[in-house]
């Protein structure tokens, strides 16, 4: 070292190692050796405790809960707009914006009265005409709303706080329609906004709910911010899901979209975010080990996995072949491929409706129970006339759930000796291709995988996937008059016992026909930091009642 420095000095250039290292610029990057976080001054503790940083399940790319029915839009909209009714944790409709309702004995005329003091975020009172316009827009897109429209005489504002809905035939599920949490919910907007074409997006986000949407801070796909609406009047009852008093205990909620699960996990561990809606199963054990983090089931209503078979073309135009698939499939294989080894996260379901809910039943589900019968299924395939046609199986690779299930299905079909045409694609392409009614070999399909939120599968109300009305049914176009008659019976049922009877028959008929193949019931976790309290399980992340200490 000394010899080298002396040579440099003779030449008049200070080219020693220290100079070289400075030239490499290494010092600047690690200049904080020995210090703690190189952060800017943290928010004052009080301000930090009033801001909840939440990682949602997906991008909030648009914010019209009637135009875009994605769950993430509904979840955000529930903060900004209120509803006339809301379901509680027993899935019973409870009054929310409504003070009282009356229905005539014949069930044809419903009269609703709004609570006092309701305001929009622009300071205007919520009037009956706003409600009427909101319901008109909602009913143009919602299945139950469309049913109401079809039998509607008129929907009018009687005075500022009263509106009337008169029908041609009774609709016993009126309150459920207005209370349900399935998208689209009947959110109440100002009249001028609600008059937007339901097939076009709104451009203003003036709400009626406990939080305002901070449009100027919105970076679609990256960040959304909600601030507390001081003039919101919560109900007196305690909050229970979408019912009761929606009391906000934080002033600001920041939704931070994190496409990378590992980053979200690290951010939660580091305290950079407070609550993560959908941690992936692989990372849950890591989060559970962290003493500052709590992990629990997110939504007790869970999800139902499924694959749909195209009933228009061979081989799945044969009921026997569809039943052969049910006979052979093992729901445990599907569920383990999604949730791994955690037995708390899945259960088999011999049917189509959400376990643990009042109308759940297993009628006709024997085909999905017990030891799997591959040989029996092969015989049924032959009886059903399977001649080796390729089964075009569309599998979206960018959704972990469909990718996992697709791999299991491909293996199942091969075990049965079927000719599998495995089409690995993405979810966007799946969305297009499944709508095509071409034959499978000509751009169409034989089967695709998906899943349904358990909240949507409690009853037929919002359960598009259970419909079997042929061309108007969901993709796969099942056509079963018996299933449709059972659904109508449920809609017309006036008592819980009648509903249960209708649902038992519906489950059996739907399984006999094989409207689709249910692959099992699975749950997911949510995770939050211990300084956050009030997080509850539910079909969406309820921010009311959630508070935070610094």
């Amino acid at each position, binding site marked *: 070292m000394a010899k080298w420095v002396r040579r*440099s000095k003779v*030449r*008049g*250039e*200070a*080219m020693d190692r220290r*100079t*070289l290292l400075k*030239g*490499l*610029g290494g010092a600047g*990057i690690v200049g*904080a050796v020995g210090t703690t*976080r*190189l*952060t*800017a001054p943290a928010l004052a503790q009080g301000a930090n405790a009033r801001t909840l940083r939440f990682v949602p399940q997906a*991008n909030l*790319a*648009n914010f019209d809960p009637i*135009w*875009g*029915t*994605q769950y993430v839009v509904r979840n955000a909209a529930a903060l900004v707009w209120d509803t006339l009714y809301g379901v509680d944790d027993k899935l019973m409709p409870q009054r929310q914006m409504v003070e009282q309702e009356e229905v005539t004995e014949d069930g044809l005329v419903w009269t609703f009265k709004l609570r006092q003091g309701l305001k929009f975020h622009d300071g205007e009172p919520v009037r009956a005409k706003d409600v009427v316009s909101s319901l008109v827009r909602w009913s143009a*897109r919602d299945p139950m709303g469309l049913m109401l429209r079809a039998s509607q005489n008129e929907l009018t504002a009687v005075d500022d706080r009263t509106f009337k809905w008169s029908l041609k035939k009774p609709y016993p599920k009126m309150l459920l329609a207005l209370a349900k949490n399935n*998208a689209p919910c009947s959110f109440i907007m100002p009249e001028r906004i609600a008059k937007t*074409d339901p*097939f*076009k*997006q709104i451009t203003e986000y003036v709400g009626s709910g406990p939080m305002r949407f901070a449009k100027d801070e919105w*970076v*679609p*796909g*990256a*960040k959304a911010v909600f601030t507390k609406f001081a003039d919101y009047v919560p109900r007196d009852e305690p909050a229970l899901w979408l019912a009761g008093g929606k009391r906000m205990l934080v002033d600001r909620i920041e939704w*931070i*979209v*994190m*496409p*990378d699960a*590992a*980053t979200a996990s*690290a*951010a939660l*561990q*580091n305290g*950079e975010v407070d609550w993560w809606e959908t941690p992936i199963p692989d990372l849950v054990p890591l989060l559970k080990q962290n003493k500052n983090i709590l992990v629990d089931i997110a939504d007790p209503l869970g999800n139902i996995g499924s694959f749909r078979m195209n009933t228009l073309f061979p081989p799945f135009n044969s009921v026997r072949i569809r039943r052969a698939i049910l006979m052979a499939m093992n729901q445990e294989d599907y569920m383990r491929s999604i949730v791994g080894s955690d037995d708390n996260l899945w259960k088999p379901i011999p049917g189509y409706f959400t376990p643990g809910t009042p109308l759940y039943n297993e009628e006709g589900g024997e085909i999905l129970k017990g030891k799997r019968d591959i040989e029996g299924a092969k015989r049924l395939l032959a009886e059903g006339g399977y001649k080796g046609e390729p089964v075009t199986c569309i599998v979206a690779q*960018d959704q972990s759930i469909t990718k996992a299930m697709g791999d299991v299905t491909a293996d199942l079909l091969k075990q049965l000796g079927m000719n599998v045409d495995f089409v690995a694609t*993405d*979810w*966007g*392409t799946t*969305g*297009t*291709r499944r*709508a095509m009614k071409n034959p499978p070999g000509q751009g169409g399909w034989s089967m695709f995988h998906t899943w*349904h939120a358990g909240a*949507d599968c409690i009853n037929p109300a*919002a359960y598009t996937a259970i419909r079997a009305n042929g061309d*108007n049914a969901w993709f796969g176009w099942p056509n079963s008059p018996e299933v449709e008659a059972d659904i109508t019976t449920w809609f017309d049922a006036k008592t819980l016992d009648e509903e249960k009877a209708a649902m038992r028959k519906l489950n059996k008929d739907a399984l006999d026909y094989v409207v689709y193949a249910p692959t099992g019931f699975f749950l997911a976790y949510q995770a939050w930091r211990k300084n956050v309290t009030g997080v509850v399980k539910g079909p969406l992340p309820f921010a009311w009642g959630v508070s935070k200490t610094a």
Partner: protein
Amino acid sequence: MGGYVGRRILSTIPVMAVVALFVFSLLYIAPGDPAAIIAGDQATPADIERIRASLGLDRPFLVQFGEWAWRILHGDLGTSIFTNLPVLDLIKQRIEPTVSLMLVTLVLAITIAVPLGVVAAWKAGSIIDRLVMLFAVFGFSVPVFVISYLLAYVFALQLDWLPVQGYTPISQGFWPWLQNLILPSIALGAVYIALIARMTRATMLEVLAQDYIKTARAKGIGQGGILFVHALKNAAVPIVTVIGLGIAVLIGGAVVTESVFVIPGLGRLTVDSILRRDYPVIQGLVLLFSFAYVIVNLGIDLLYTLIDPRIRY
């Protein structure tokens, strides 16, 4: 010179026109339907059709292209199908994080890579040279996201020196802005550093073998002067070329880096738009990246004239 610059700028027009037609056509024939994505899982085919019609997606290709091209010529990049916001507004929202990331990465990369390459060439064959080359191999081989995860794990999670994620606008302070960019720019810069270091070493070796370097040594000029004044200046042209070409590498790498470090930049906007088939945004972004790349190349060509006075246009 002015004429040269003018000609180059004019020549971007046919380039952009070809890019525009290519991108538009590609998206038109690519599978996927934004109307279906918008309508959601519960939508009926009639709903999807209606949304498609309201977005104008049911019109013939030439009509759609013509309208879009006309709007582009008037500086209107269109409106996002999903957010209903002007594409230009979306780009304005996201451009600062991406430019910041690329700038910091560029500065970091050049600051580290050029001296590394110079030293490697100076000490060719030595352990220092081998270490620099090993680092270069590492930078080329290890994917950006792996480096990102490692950096986040060590410096954010374990040492708690830097945040795991996020971006702070520079208007909120220089240090908050920089601290969010340190880890992402190191991750993104790794391959860039490797590229520049190797190119610097290669050209420096060539230059150091020249007779005028021997003359400079004979005249008593110190090693620092030889390396960083005489040799590097003459080796600069290929290095600058590689830096310019590497901008494309940065743009591609920014997509992954922005996703891992949750930086709300153009890279993430590109990926999100592609996944949901938000055609106007995709088209706008591709045009923007193409234009930026053309301008960067022009800048590099002009830089040559500063480095090498013999180059004149």
